[in-house]
């Protein structure tokens, strides 16, 4: 990446130009630092408060620096049996739905890229268009559907819906990734006697692991963070996922701000870990799948 600033100021410059460049740089750093501090402030408040006791908060407010770090709030949050149920439920929804959506994306992406047919371009656009629409459009029919087949208030609706709603983005990414792989590779494998299933599994899947990693981080984050579907499709406490649970428990801890903060952080740990360890894939995915939001 070439810097605009560096390009703008040529290397062989007079001394006062050098000084001016330094000053520009210093000003840039200073303003960036201020902005980043302001930008982080909201999050910092929650982190700080989660380490303070309720008395400390009521004495010094949410934003005072804690006198000492204590983990009581985390202990209390984690010992609330519901919180553990919510976290387990979130994993039970997120992991299968992440796998499921990537799997069907692999299948359809392969067809659209390597086995196109008359009209497949239109079918592709039809599938991809799905990621642009607000989910409210299907809320009521799906609510009725899952009610009538007895899956209401189980984890199944979320698994099924997230898998299906993941199809557009997974298809888009996989098709684009496969299109960059030469078709000759498929043809060679077919001449060697492999069928399409074997070609996908043995040749294309191993090559597309970077794309799968991008999708995995993306889908995991979206599904984990989802709030709407579990809000609609579940009602009992032992079927709630963590984001809905967070809102449910807010009433219970309405004055225990520290516990609220600790719960919000516990709920965010899985996606934060993904962000820290797979940031490259995460950002790549965000760029590619931005439109889904």
């Amino acid at each position, binding site marked *: *990446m070439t810097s*605009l600033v560096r390009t703008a100021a040529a290397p062989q410059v007079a001394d006062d130009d050098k000084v001016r460049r330094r000053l520009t740089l210093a000003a840039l750093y200073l303003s960036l630092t201020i902005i*980043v501090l302001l930008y982080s402030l909201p999050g910092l408040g929650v982190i700080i408060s989660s380490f303070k006791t309720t008395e400390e908060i009521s004495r010094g407010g949410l934003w005072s620096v804690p006198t000492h770090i204590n983990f009581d709030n985390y202990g209390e949050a984690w010992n609330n049996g519901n919180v553990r149920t919510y976290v387990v439920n979130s994993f039970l929804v997120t992991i299968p739905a992440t796998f499921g959506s990537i799997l069907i994306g692999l*299948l*359809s992406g392969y067809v659209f890229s390597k086995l196109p047919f008359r009209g497949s371009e239109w079918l592709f656009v039809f*599938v991809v268009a799905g990621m642009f629409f607000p989910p409210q459009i299907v*809320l009521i029919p799906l609510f009725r559907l899952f009610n009538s087949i007895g899956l209401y208030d189980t984890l199944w609706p979320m698994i099924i819906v997230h898998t299906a709603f993941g199809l557009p983005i997974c298809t888009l990414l996989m098709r684009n990734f496969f299109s960059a792989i030469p078709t000759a590779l498929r043809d060679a494998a077919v001449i060697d006697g492999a069928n399409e299933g074997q070609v996908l599994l043995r040749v294309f899947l191993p090559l597309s692991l970077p794309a799968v990693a991008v999708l995995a981080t993306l889908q995991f984050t979206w599904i984990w963070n989802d*709030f709407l579907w579990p809000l609609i499709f579940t009602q009992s406490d032992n079927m709630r996922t963590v*984001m809905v649970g967070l809102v449910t428990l807010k009433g219970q801890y309405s004055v225990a701000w520290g516990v609220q903060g600790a719960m919000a952080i516990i709920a965010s740990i899985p996606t934060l870990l993904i962000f820290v360890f797979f940031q490259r894939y995460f950002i790549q995915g965000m760029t590619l799948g*931005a439109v889904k939001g």
Partner: protein
Amino acid sequence: MVRSRWFWRITFLSIPLLLYLVIVVGPLLYSFFFSLTDWNGFSYDFNFVGLDNFAKIFEDPLFGGAIKNTVIWMVAALTIPTLGGLALALALQTQLRGARLFKSLFYLPICLSLVVVGQIWIWIYQPRWGLLNLTLDSVGLMDVSRAWLASPETALASVIVAWGWQQTGLAMVIFLAGLTSVPTELLEAAQIDGANYRQSLVRVVIPLLQPATVVVIALAVINSLKSFDIVYIMTGGGPFHSSDTLAMMMYNESFKKYFMGYGSAISVVLFLIALVLIAFYFRQVRSLENLYD
């Protein structure tokens, strides 16, 4: 050979497409159907009421308010996070030491759930302890400080700011990706021709960022239509419906008041608005493949 290709096309596409049809497309069409009924969400039966729900929509002052708020949301989304994201991307694409750390800090909110983002900002706006009022009070602006989320004049703006906090990082990610595709030679050529930083920015960089800009704008508009989670958590659409968006209103009518027929009609309107915007978007980006490279 041809037959075997069709065998694999059908095998690969059947599960993805079946799921997509049952969970996404079918319910979408069903929403049109329900919008012509008075279904209440509980009973199995319902009556056909023709276009009554749509007639009611246009007399409902709540709907007018929700439309207005959604438009305000869109306009705000198009300006603040877009310009903020662009400015940050331009500042951070330089080979600044520490740029990676700065970037990470701005990215970070993207991996948080809107539930958590809402929670974080509720603490900022908290009337007694919130950082906003504390700051205002300490600089002598007591008259300005208020219960931000409980005042009809400020509730919507407060929620949009919280949302924009996350959205800015997202816009930055996309602009940064767009900036990497600006050829260095062009910038050097501009510099040789005597262009200063501002000129090369306005004449070279911004025009070349057009694809990224289209994505950011589409994202802002589409996400505005989807604005639900954070409204639900921060205000629930209140006080007095002052922060109702279309998506929020659709939820309240359907799942709070159980006017499922009326709720379906609102979702149909939401769909039609989305359809117009998406058609416009697809016309802007001539083909999907060129979009992200």
